[in-house]
């Protein structure tokens, strides 16, 4: 049997926050989570704010060290093989973090150089990706601060893809985008998976997006993976009519919930 691209077993991460003198509170951001993603599969993690989606992505991105559990990505273990893992992942976060004064070109070339790539090759690839995402060539030299959120997010996706990674970690990549930009990004991701066989782990609030892009979906609530399967499986298991209803039935929560905010700051 082929090794999964992402293999997570009994992963746990607790954040402790000091509340006054000698008092601390604990929040389990990731609570005994296990799942696997096959090579070339798009796997979706659905959950409200504070459910642990971003913490999970950050563990897989080598930015957060878990308290316990096992993570293997294309055969590399975390945190031991973090240098190798960094070479095989691309990440897009919900906030398009860039040097806002620099142009798209400068930001992308900086990233490519940081990964040891040739600037000229990276530039060609970046232009190609941005064209596919529906961006005009002329925007390549525009400072990021003069771009809309949608455009910035497209640059963010281009930054992850210019590295040509076999694993893509997307943390709410379409949150805050207008419908046209959202559709552009979704079509691009579908095409990328088909063309390159890229494995994609996607976190989202958007049921329609999850249904469209993901072969399988996991429901996260309070740091726990409460259910996973195909859209049909989940709807059938919950005895619901839609994925939205299935989520509420299986997690007891709605996706708009905002009361649990991770204490990572």
């Amino acid at each position, binding site marked *: 049997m082929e090794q999964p691209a992402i293999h997570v077993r009994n992963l746990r991460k607790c954040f402790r926050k000091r509340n006054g003198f000698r008092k601390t509170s604990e929040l389990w951001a990731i609570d005994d989570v296990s799942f696997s993603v096959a090579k070339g599969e798009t796997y979706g993690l659905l959950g409200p704010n504070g459910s642990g989606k971003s913490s999970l992505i950050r563990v897989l991105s080598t*930015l957060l060290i878990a308290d316990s559990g096992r993570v293997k990505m294309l055969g590399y273990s975390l*945190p031991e093989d973090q*240098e190798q893992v960094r070479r095989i992942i691309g990440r897009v976060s919900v906030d398009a973090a860039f040097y*806002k*004064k*620099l142009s798209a070109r400068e930001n992308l070339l900086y990233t490519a150089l940081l*990964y040891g790539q040739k600037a000229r090759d990276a530039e060609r690839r970046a232009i190609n990706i941005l064209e596919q995402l529906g961006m005009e060539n002329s925007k390549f030299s525009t*400072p990021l601060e003069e771009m809309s959120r949608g455009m910035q997010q497209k640059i963010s996706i281009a930054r992850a893809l210019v590295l040509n990674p076999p694993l893509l970690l997307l943390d709410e990549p379409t949150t805050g985008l207008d419908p046209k930009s959202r559709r552009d990004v979704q079509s691009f991701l579908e095409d990328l998976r088909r063309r390159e066989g890229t494995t994609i782990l996607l976190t989202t609030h958007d049921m329609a997006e999850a249904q469209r892009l993901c072969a399988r979906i996991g429901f996260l609530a309070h740091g726990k993976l409460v259910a996973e399967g195909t859209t049909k499986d989940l709807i059938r298991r919950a005895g619901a009519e839609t994925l939205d209803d299935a989520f509420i039935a299986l997690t007891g929560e709605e996706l708009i919930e905002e009361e649990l905010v991770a204490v990572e700051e």
Partner: protein
Amino acid sequence: METTMRQTWAFLFRGYHLTRRYIGWVIVFNFYALVTSATVALIGVAAGNYQLTLTLVVGALLWNYLSSLYNEIAMSIAYERWEGTLEYTFMAPVSRLIHLLGVSLYSLLNSIATSLIVLAGLVFFTNLNLRGANLFGVLIVVMVSTLAFVGLGLIAAVFPVMSAERGAEATHIFQGSLLLVSGVYYPIEVLPKWMQPLSAVSPATYTLSACRKLFGVGISGSTPELLAGAPLSAVTRELLILALMGAVLLPLGLWIFVRIEAWAKRAGKLKRTG
């Protein structure tokens, strides 16, 4: 090797383009550095004492260089926190040694440029004649002390890793303390007695002491027309101490940085703030 070169170049590339995009602020900061240095040096001119002028010029020039170097390295992490790019730098397959080397190289070039501007301004305002000064010796001392200051910058750079809010404040407090105890503009002996031993742990103390001798400050043969700069052998003690400080502070800075980074990843402190 090629990969390492490209990764090091990435930080110079980033620094160059950020300087270009923030050119207005770069001009303002350099102007401010020049004016503050000149106003301090002009105190010596007003007193009609070329030895005092030379003391102040050396202090202003070297402090500009050393503090700029320290500040650029120490604040590089804070800038990345504010931009939100720190996670992406830490996620890249670049060793911390190359990362910090790249940052330090850019800071060094930046500091040299600022120092040349300040030097030109100081010579213009004070009309100081540097003939007879041991400028080669000064260059050697500055090169050796650069290592110690890069090490201090690396140590201070961990503060913004630990806390986005308090980290930048801590680096400035540390920098201010160095200014106070290192005898930049006055002899250490004028400091309160209990504070004077602190000057012994600042590399700037030895840099300034050595460079003043090499410029001919306090040397009987010096005249306004021809300075009697000391030979390099006269500052062997300072050079050895600076070399030792560099040898300790550089690896120590890197070691502390790597450990604090691991701690920040366990505690979840890398998240974007600001």
